[in-house]
């Protein structure tokens, strides 16, 4: 099992580890079931998968100025939120939701990270020091 590290920048402070949940399309927290953390959005590539306890690797966010925060809040109240988030294309609505909910999170990860990361890889996000470490399953 090899461990690789990648540079990144902090969004919200903190450090957390978990299996990677990789979303190559935009994520809307409103369309996630709060009781289970399962993505219920029809036609989403991650439909049926759970965010609970994962490190979410999100391509981008989507949704109105209200729904992103409301969805993430409901997940956090039920303790089904992702433990950390790696966001590829930050937008103000997603970023402010992460800051308000204080979810350890980063952006601007080295491009090589995206070529490397696979669903289920064990990831540690250290937002304070701007480091992602990835333990590949292969």
């Amino acid at each position, binding site marked *: 099992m090899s461990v690789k590290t990648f540079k990144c920048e902090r969004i919200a402070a903190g450090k957390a580890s978990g299996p990677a949940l990789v979303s190559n399309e935009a994520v809307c927290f409103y369309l996630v079931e709060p009781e289970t953390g399962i993505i219920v959005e029809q036609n989403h590539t991650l439909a049926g998968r759970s965010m609970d306890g994962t490190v979410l690797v999100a391509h981008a966010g989507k949704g109105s*100025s209200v729904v992103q*925060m*409301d969805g*993430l809040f409901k997940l956090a109240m039920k303790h089904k939120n992702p433990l950390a988030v790696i966001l590829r*294309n930050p937008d103000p609505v997603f970023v*402010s939701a992460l800051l308000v909910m204080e979810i350890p999170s980063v952006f601007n990860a080295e491009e090589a990270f995206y070529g490397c990361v696979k669903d289920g890889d064990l990831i540690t996000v250290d937002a304070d020091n701007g480091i992602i470490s990835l333990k590949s399953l292969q």
Partner: protein
Amino acid sequence: MKLTDEQRGMLNGEYGEAASYAMKIQEGVGRVFRANRMVPITRAHVALSAQDADVWFVEKLVGMGGKCKIAPTVNPSIDVPYLNRYLAEVPQEGKEIVSRTNEAYRKIGAALTFNCTPYLQQNVPAFKEIISFSESSATPYVNSVIGARTNRESSQSALCAAITGFVPEYGLLLEENRKAEILVDVKAKIRDDFDYQLLGWCYPLVYNGPEVPAFAGIEERPTPEGFMNFGAELNTSGAVGMYHIIGITPEAPDIKTAFCGKEPRKNIVIEQKDIEMVRKRICGEPGKIDFAMFGCPHLSIRQVGDIARVCKGRRFAVDVWILTSSLTKELAARMGFLDIISRAGGHIVADTCIDVPPCWWPYYGKNAVTDSPKCAYYNEIRKISFKIRPLEQAIEAAIIGEVRI
């Protein structure tokens, strides 16, 4: 990000706990988007939603002693007494969250307008004014139609700005990020307010990117309501914080100015067949309806007058709900529209949103008509099936209880 002494003092708690907390969130946003500094705002609009996260956040700020430096206008919630009297008892959970939300926003010093079209009344910015507006239909209107400057804020980041009186300077606050990059040649016939609903829904289906688009080929200036519909649908089907209409909106007198002399990154054509594709996909087949709902976004006095003209001396066959601001309702009363609509059996309800559960529960699973694709979309989760028609056609449908064409 470089902060002034005052801003640094806020961050360090010299202006109280709430200002420090709000500043920390804004400092984080500024850091991510590479803002160099924070600049003062003169207006804010908060997309109050009366949902769990909304009430939690505003109560947290109130608990810290928070007070808005810039009183923000706020989005609608529910007129509980009116719906209790004329629709059905609002569930206890709904009553509680509405009263907690209203109280917290009152304590924090918001202007309790409960209206989602602040750009038409009560919070109208000027050209180049730096502001902080959330609400997906408001952001494009103030940026594009008026030429004021705001990013696509979340309701939380807009409330933080209202508390501190500052926003990080990045994105659409900077001249260079407001120029068009996508040229959209509109070959379809866009004439009335309803055509803008369809065009607004259509564009993100044809091209979905973060760049600012400029629409060419529109000769006649849209009405305020046409612009309102356009922005609302651009931000339901997609996320467009700003657009230009060549020869019409203030930062696009001609193509050269809109694109800052550069070539478009991409050229797009929207033809009549694209508009017809949208109509076919979202507007629904003719058929019986159980009720009618209008006001997403809140209707203007001109639209309320249009409804009164169609229903004067007639009776609605189904429940009709017309959602607007309290000011427009008062104006409708003065102008006689409220009497005409009431005699026809319709309701004008103030301060209320089509999307705030659970007050509309008697209609879950029913069929209805509206003029708004946004209203139809956000009610899908409540299994309400909306047919979408131009306003006057939809009113005719409510009179006979059926959408015939």
